[in-house]
């Protein structure tokens, strides 16, 4: 049985449906991420798990127990808030001792437990500091320590890294992964940052307009998006509108209007005449002045460089196809000593393995 089960949960605020018939299950020990743009319902779902909101319909089961009507203070669920919400009048140690005291842990045991968790987040020497005497990253770690000290069944994290700068964020991501492995507590993580979600999670639920669009492992979500929305939201992706012209076992043909025919892996439900989108990651596209033609498994097109973006390690080339569609491609700048291979308006050729693209039915 899954640790957490969400069954057909609906939540509306007035006319607005924040969460629309969501069902999912989270296994014990999992690092599970709810990913989506703002307003997709991920925070509302999190607040329902914490108990701050009640679902209009549907059930939330934790360890098989229905959580309906259980107030936040009675749930074995703790939250790391986006603003950290550390108590400013308490020291780090007092902040962390707070949930222990609320749970009635024996006074003699409290300091030991506080020390243990301070060690986990490497903040032993800051125990007597007040929150305003800490840096953003340290505050973040105190908030996590405070939420973990009681060993909740479920730890909820509401965009916990969004207030940190990019470098610190990456460091904290590594710490979070290690911490989660170490303590073995189930994490439910909310973010709008797809990079963060891919880096941290065992599984990701991509949400849009109150619904789960796709629930899969990060690599599946990245490589095989189930919908145009997921493809577009996760990472950079080229979206080419196409129509199916031929379906064979193991292979199908799609017509990209004004450009030509491409081969792709067939998808369930594919039928000749079916419309959809060919999704193609920039790094999977080969780019060259002239590429060998006629490869059995390759799709091959011509284009013209429209824009170049030099990013240091790679250069992004935006290539315009015959029908005016812009396709993003990239070339690493390694080994050549050159910063750029092409300039604007250079004629180039594009190619990709037929199974690099992923067709999504409209």
């Amino acid at each position, binding site marked *: 049985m899954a640790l957490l089960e969400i069954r057909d949960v609906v939540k509306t605020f007035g006319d607005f449906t924040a969460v629309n018939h969501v069902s999912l299950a989270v296994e014990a020990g999992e690092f599970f991420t709810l990913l989506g743009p703002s307003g997709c319902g991920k925070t509302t779902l999190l607040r329902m798990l914490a108990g701050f909101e009640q679902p209009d319909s549907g059930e939330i089961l934790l360890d098989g127990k229905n959580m309906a009507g259980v107030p936040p203070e009675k749930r074995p669920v703790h939250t790391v808030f986006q603003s950290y919400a550390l108590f400013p009048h308490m020291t780090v140690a007092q902040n962390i001792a707070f949930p222990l005291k609320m749970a009635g842990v024996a006074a003699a045991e409290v300091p030991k437990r506080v020390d243990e968790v301070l060690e986990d987040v490497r903040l032993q020497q800051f125990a007597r500091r007040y929150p305003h005497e800490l840096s953003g990253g340290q505050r973040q770690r105190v908030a996590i320590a*405070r939420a973990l000290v009681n060993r909740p069944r479920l730890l909820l994290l509401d965009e916990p890294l969004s207030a940190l700068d990019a470098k610190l964020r990456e460091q904290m991501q590594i710490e979070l992964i290690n911490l989660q492995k170490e303590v073995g507590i189930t994490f439910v993580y909310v973010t709008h940052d797809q990079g963060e979600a891919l880096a941290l999670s065992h599984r990701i639920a991509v949400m849009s307009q109150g619904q789960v669009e796709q629930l899969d492992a990060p690599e599946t979500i990245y490589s095989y998006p189930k919908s145009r929305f997921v493809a577009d939201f996760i990472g950079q992706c080229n979206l080419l509108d196409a129509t199916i012209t031929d379906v064979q076992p193991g292979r199908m043909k799609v017509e990209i209007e004004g450009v030509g025919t491409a081969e792709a892996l067939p998808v369930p439900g594919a039928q000749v005449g079916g419309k959809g989108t060919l999704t193609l990651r920039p790094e999977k596209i080969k780019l060259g002045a002239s590429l060998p033609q006629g490869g059995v498994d390759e799709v091959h097109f011509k284009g013209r460089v429209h824009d170049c973006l030099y990013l240091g390690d790679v250069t992004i080339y935006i290539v315009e196809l015959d029908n005016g569609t812009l396709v993003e491609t990239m070339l690493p700048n390694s080994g050549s000593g050159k910063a750029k291979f092409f300039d604007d308006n250079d004629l180039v050729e594009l190619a990709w393995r037929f199974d690099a693209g992923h067709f999504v039915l409209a």
Partner: protein
Amino acid sequence: MKSKSLAKWLISGPPLLYLVLFFAIPSLIMAFAAFRFPGDYGGLLPLTAANPDTGATELLINFGNWRDFLTLENFQRFFEEPIYFELFVKSFWYAGLTTVICIVLAYPLAWLIARSPKKTRDLLVLLVILPFWSNFLIRVYAWMIILGPQSYFSRSLNYLLGLVGIEPVSLLFSQFAVIVGLVYVHLPFMVLPLYANLEKHDMALLDAAQDLGANAWQRFWKVTWPLSLPGVWAGTALVFIPALGMFAIPDLLGGTNSMMIGNLIKQQYLDSRDWPFGSVLSIMLTLTVLLLAALAGWAGSRGKDKR
């Protein structure tokens, strides 16, 4: 650099001058008066006199005869007669009780205002300060009518008391009336600083406390209350100190036994015209308040170290 400090003086100069002229110097005059004798017809025994021959003003006091002009008798009187000490204790009790009642009444109100939508909030704050638009004495006289034996309030109360077999009570001219008056007049001074404090509280802290297992009672006493203490202290200073020196309310609403220290000081200056003893009472009141404030500050800083 120099022009900057000049600007500083230009800005802070006038208010500083005002305070020196109308607060510091009068306070020193009063402190000095406490060591002088009362004059034959009240006031102070003069230290100067006009020379009958020349008409010039001459100083009467000198190193030989200063004992005829300066004395500790006034302080002696204060410490020897227990009635003054008792009056101090009673005044502190009234002011303390007023402060506590004000905190209890003002806290929920300030909380309600701080949690209202922005528009309602401004209206509610306006309503709190609205009484200031009418004269203080008129508002106290209104209480005389409300608490008077002929008012609907008194008559209904006594009717209800009669139903359960309790003797009718007289509300006006009692300690009860004095406390009601003191609380009524000072309540806004507690509401406003508390509101200013509570309004700034981060609601996420209460969510966090609840999430971490605190029930409503614990959330208040562990989070809201300690964070609101600066507001509570500000309100206490604004209520306790003026309430301590209040004389108009005991005069109008109090009976013979509800006199406060302020009444005695007023009596000494205006009725008995014993300025030196009035000065002693004022100084002792000021010193006691300062001592209490110092003690509170010391206790506060100790408490902080312990945390």
